[in-house]
């Protein structure tokens, strides 16, 4: 038994990484326009295309002063972040970081799964990255447009041809107007089918996310 000298390895204590207060205490996503919180399901947070959201990040209280000196967002496809962060003081005196998250326009009629990450830069421990899965939904107008293109237009093309042409020749305008008047019932039916088609697309999107991504 000898006294430890500088040559021997002395025990170095560190703060175990599993006990470090790295994750934020709260991440709240909130619509900028309406102020409400989006839906959350087992598949992620449900956002709307072409909408903007606040992401409010509250770092944990730490025994070390100024433990988190920067909070940022890293976004995947279909999402946008202008990159600037606002800091606001809560009623209890704690600092909250507010970031802006935008959803890009979606061309497809079905929702898409993506994610964004909240990055907390800790003074002592370095960066911590918390990934949040989200589902971006196309707007209802987008889905209506798809239903219009896929259902309404194909249904109306033969009808319009019949209204406008007879045996390869253009009908007189008075006849066309008469024929159109006779098609009012057809218009209502095709409009209803188009609307139902739009909702069917939406329903399929929900079903896909509930039973495919939900597990």
């Amino acid at each position, binding site marked *: *038994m*000898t*006294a*430890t*000298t500088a040559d*021997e*390895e*002395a*025990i*170095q*204590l*560190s*703060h*175990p*990484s*599993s*006990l*470090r*207060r*790295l*994750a*934020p*205490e709260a*991440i709240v996503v909130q619509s900028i326009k309406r102020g409400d919180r989006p*839906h*959350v*399901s*087992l*598949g*992620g*947070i*449900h956002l709307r295309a072409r909408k903007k959201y606040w992401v409010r990040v509250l770092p*944990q209280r730490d025994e070390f002063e100024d433990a988190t000196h920067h909070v940022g967002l890293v976004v995947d496809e279909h999402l946008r972040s202008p990159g600037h962060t606002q800091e606001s003081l809560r009623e209890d005196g704690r600092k909250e970081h507010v970031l802006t998250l935008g959803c890009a326009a979606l061309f497809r009629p079905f929702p898409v799964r993506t994610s964004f990450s909240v990055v907390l830069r800790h003074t002592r421990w370095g960066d911590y990255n*918390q*990934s*949040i*899965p989200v589902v971006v939904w196309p707007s209802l107008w987008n889905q209506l447009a798809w239903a219009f293109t896929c259902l309404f237009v194909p249904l109306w093309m033969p009808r319009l041809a019949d209204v406008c042409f007879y045996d390869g020749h253009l009908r007189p305008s008075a006849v066309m107007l008469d024929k159109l008047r006779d098609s009012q019932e057809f218009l209502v039916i095709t409009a209803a089918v188009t609307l139902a088609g739009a909702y069917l697309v939406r329903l399929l999107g*929900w079903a896909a996310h*509930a*039973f495919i991504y*939900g597990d």
Partner: protein
Amino acid sequence: MPTSPEPEYQLAAIERLRQAENPFILYVASGAEDDECQRFDVPAFLAQQRADIESIIDLYRLKPDRVSHVFPIVGDAGTGKTHLLGTLRRDLNAARQLFIVADSFPGQQEPTDFFLWQVVGSLLARSGPGAQMLTHLSRRLTSRLLVEAVRRLDPSARLGLIPPQGYWDGLGRRLGLRSVVDAVLRKIDDLLETCDGAKLLDLPGVCHGAGLPLDLACQTIEEHLEKSEALDANGWLRRRLFAGFARLALQGDREDLEDFLTNGFTEAPGHVAGTGSLTKKLLTVLLEAFGAINVPVILAFDQLEDFLRSGSMELEKERKQNFCRGLVALVNGVPGLCILLFAERGLWNEVLGSLDRYLTDRLARPFSLPGQGPRERIDLPDRITRSDLVALIRARVQPTLGDLEGKDPLPDIFPFAETDLDHLVEQTSLRGCLQQLSKRYGERLTPAAPPVIVSPVGGAGPDDAFPGELHERWTQRWYYHRSRALARIRADEISAADIPAVAEAVQVWLDYLTEHSLAGPAQWAKAEVRQHGHELFGYVNLLRFEGPRSAGLGIGAWLAEGKHRPKDLEAKLAFFEIKPAVLRNLVLLRRDGQEAVSGVSKDLFEAAIGKGKDIRVESLSDGDLAVILALPQWLKAIGPDLEPAGLAGREVVNAIVQERTGALLERLQSWRVTPAEAAQ
């Protein structure tokens, strides 16, 4: 001096005192659980020293990785050092610091190994402050881990923590129905808020309340540990250790943690085992765990003279050097360790004077407490004040008087007179005061009591005690320590983690027998504790009879239970493999005797017998184990009285040692003879 007739209420009080035991007969508080002595504590006495020590502990609580330091608490013999330590252990909340009182110091062990086993042994105790600390540590760490594990989950993953209540609830979560989802997330938030609070929780109850199944909570923590801890040796140890704490706190499963701390950590994968001393790494991880929840670790040594004094000058010098080197190794090698050293002033000065500068600089390093100047030690007062003396008398006499009617007019110092106190305040030691008070108390309660005290100094000290009285007094102390050891054994506080401590205790006994030529016909040339192989199980007391280098008799405490029982046996059998041979025969001491030789242990045992090894398992009763464990404590307790008692005292101690350990010594003599020799 003529005596005036005593009033009736005073006579009644004296009569009441006569019916009870002399309250001044016990001198010190020897432990946190020593209620008899704690009852007589006078808080005002040594209050400043107690406050200073608490300030030191708080410094380590605020900064757990603070530089380790030795804090000597010095005073003359009998000034209350042991009492101060005992009351400190009682008063400090057991869940706020790990307070280890070392009753030995390593001979063969590395100081860090010794310290690790002290920590593990303390934590694995089934009752007492160590058990409270384990509960506290496991709950706090598990709460922290659970909070961090859940916070690192995204909201959709949090929804999966609480199982759905039926099909529609599950469907609602899949579809993201706000009412369903918000209710679940609110429960999780409440759980996080409760677990992150400062209050110590009934963690399983809190999880049940939130609807989080305990096995899922454990699994979440384990997954968090897998993701967040590094793949190096410390990371591996943390994963296993923290998962063990989580299972203890959440499911009450203690076995996993016990296995890991006593042996499991040695069964590490190759990339971990090859990185150096695992005991040092385990100690690191344990200290980090304590530091993470701001629990300071205090290692206290009481009665330094027991560690250092010896009959021979040479041996004493060697002990001093080894002890101080060990302390310095701990200070240098282990951060965040607060070492409290309770020592006699003269001895401490003597020790410091005999060391080289390297050791002195580290042991006498000044420290500073908030609002105070730098100093090198905490000094105990060299004189007891009158007010403390009055408080001491009141504290000891009042409980005996109890609810006696008409006791109110009795003076605070009853049954003593003011003149008694005049003599006592000249005493420099508390023990001296108590001895005189004890004697005077006896005189006052006898019908023909002399009115005043006459012998100011040394009246009832051990010098004046007849050997018969000494024998009775020290035998009582023996019974006290043996019953404490027996209580620990019966409370299952003695586990595999105590194997090094049992080996050290056996060594104390063997050393005592050697030093005082009490070994009789079994006299050995050399007795030593030998450590080989396994960090915990690999301890054997080796008695070399033929010469200091000859192969001899090994005595090993086989204490491990369950799946570690064969590993413990294997570690002991490994001593036969040492070249040149150190073992001629091996005796394994086991509480359940030969019954332990079953299953895998039996295969190992028979294989060794087949190879011609001389091994036997000897039944070690609880009483025998208590004798072994009690002896060092008893020697330590009577130490201060031994020197003043002179040669007569030493003879009394020798006689008691022979009486109490004679049966063990006879068994030891029989172990020396191998079966082959016996057949001849």
